[in-house]
């Protein structure tokens, strides 16, 4: 039976991963669309920025977030003075760290699914009276759905395991930012914390398996809906 502390970490991990995934989703779709269907001057730069968290060490990403969004950072200062929002040391900060780290994975999955949809179908929809947006939403989007779902789940799973950027940007505050990976790390450091660490690891495994099972169910559901085998 998990202790309150363990449940806290579990609940926090789920909360952070879910919010991070949901918040990233529209942005990731926009980025995927820009990269797949348009050609504008800064496209290569956008591609690089989107994929940066994939190639940079997570701690570096956390540090960059801290520089920009920390108390003394340019964006952080503006957020605080204009809207009273502080991200460092808060769950919001943990969400941001997780979202940034999992963003490239989501964009890649969505972009692939977008590119797999025949662009000619959208033209067919246009000749039938659909506007550009209507054609995208009515035709391309439903056909992209398996890719979007898979991208979201990959991002969710990645967020569950996010450590480096979180601990650097949001720190390790119990109840606020101490997600499962951070809780395990703390337990390992603590004298005689091995048992706690093992229990948390078990919890993480259960969560991972649960997420994978959910992914499988979602994937099958969507495929059936689209009439695919």
């Amino acid at each position, binding site marked *: 039976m998990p202790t309150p502390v363990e449940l806290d970490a579990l609940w926090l991990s789920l909360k952070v991963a879910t919010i991070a995934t949901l918040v990233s989703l529209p942005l990731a779709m926009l980025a995927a669309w820009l990269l797949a269907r348009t050609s504008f001057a800064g496209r290569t730069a956008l591609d690089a920025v989107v994929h940066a968290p994939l190639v940079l060490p997570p701690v570096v990403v956390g540090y960059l977030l801290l520089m920009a969004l920390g108390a003394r950072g340019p964006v952080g200062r503006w957020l605080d003075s204009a809207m009273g929002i502080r991200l460092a040391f808060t769950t919001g900060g943990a969400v941001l760290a997780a979202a940034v780290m999992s963003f490239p994975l989501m964009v890649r999955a969505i972009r692939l699914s977008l590119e797999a949809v025949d662009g*000619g179908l959208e033209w067919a929809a246009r000749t039938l*009276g659909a506007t550009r947006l209507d054609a995208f939403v009515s*035709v391309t989007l439903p056909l992209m759905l398996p890719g979007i779902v898979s991208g979201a789940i990959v991002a969710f799973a990645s967020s569950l395991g996010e450590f480096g950027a979180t601990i650097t940007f949001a720190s390790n505050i119990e109840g606020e930012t101490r997600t499962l990976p951070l809780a395990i790390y703390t337990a390992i450091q603590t004298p005689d914390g091995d048992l706690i660490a093992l229990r948390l690891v078990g919890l993480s495994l259960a969560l991972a398996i649960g997420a994978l099972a959910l992914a499988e169910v979602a994937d099958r559901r969507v495929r059936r809906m*689209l009439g695919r085998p």
Partner: protein
Amino acid sequence: MIEVCVRRRLGAFLLDADFAAPSQGITGLFGRSGAGKTTLINLMAGILAPDAGRIAIDDLVFCDADARVTLAPEARRIGFVFQDSRLFPHLSVEANLRFGLRRRRQAPCPITFDAVVDVLGVDHLLPRRPQTLSGGERQRIALGRALLAQPRLLLLDEPLASLDAPRKAEILSYIERLRDQFRLPMIYVSHSLDELIRLADHLLVVSDGRIAAAGPLADVISRLDLQPLLGRFEAGAVVDCVVQAHDPHYRLTTLRFDGGQLRVPLVDRPEGERVRVRLRARDIALALSEPRDVSISNRLVGTISDFAVRDGVFVDVTVAVGTTTVRALISRESKDRLALEIGQRVWALVKTVALDNRSLGLLRPPRATDRDAGRE
């Protein structure tokens, strides 16, 4: 009037088309692969934008590069039937059909869902998914879907290209039915002259990005100078006939036109129905008097109106038969031997065998019932 005067470059290819076509009936767009037919209709639909020029139908301007006016495809109400049908795989057949219809909520919809389903005979396909349909069925749905969007003009881009011969005949008859029922102007793109001869009233010939010929079908078809484009021995006359009577014993049909009668292999069409016949020049022989002891059943009386020598070997003889013009391709030797002259009365002889399904634009006789035609 459909007025098109556009220029568009695609890589090394340049389309420079200038023509006017009637905004009623079916205009055929004929040309080899790569001639620019698809580019042209893509420009008309708004899928491509011209580099320069103007497209207008009955004074409604769709795009004008100089005046910087462009109507988006969804605003043009120009229907499009694609070669690969492009049905939406995530929607049922019914949802596909209703796709365009739904988007014209406020506007009047004279082409009704039930009418289209009825004409195309697809009622039993409505709950299915496009992936489960055959090629012929898919094209039928594509036709219906484009129609239900209430287009003012329908563009068909080689709609039969991906179908096998029996399906082609089937879909062709559906297109004819649609034309008759809904009176929709169409532009029909094809590299098959047989299809166009059957359907088109007006013909445009595209070659290397330019319009090589434009005009009424019969006129363009009879122009032997277009032989390189139309195909060496394809030139001839197109005659509009009416089914007069069927002879079940000999399995022949009599067709009548104002220049006389034609005996053809049995045509599965009711009496009184229109059938177009192509009389290829090479299938016609000439006689100075009506032959009696000869097997050829089709003998048409006419007057020679023109000669033209071809390759130094053959002579193209134009014969006026009633109000129809018929052409015969005979050897120069024969012309001299018979001492043919302009104004001379001659008999044009056509073997019944030569008037096969292809000449009648019937690639295969349609089956007895319409329902049967719907099944594979």
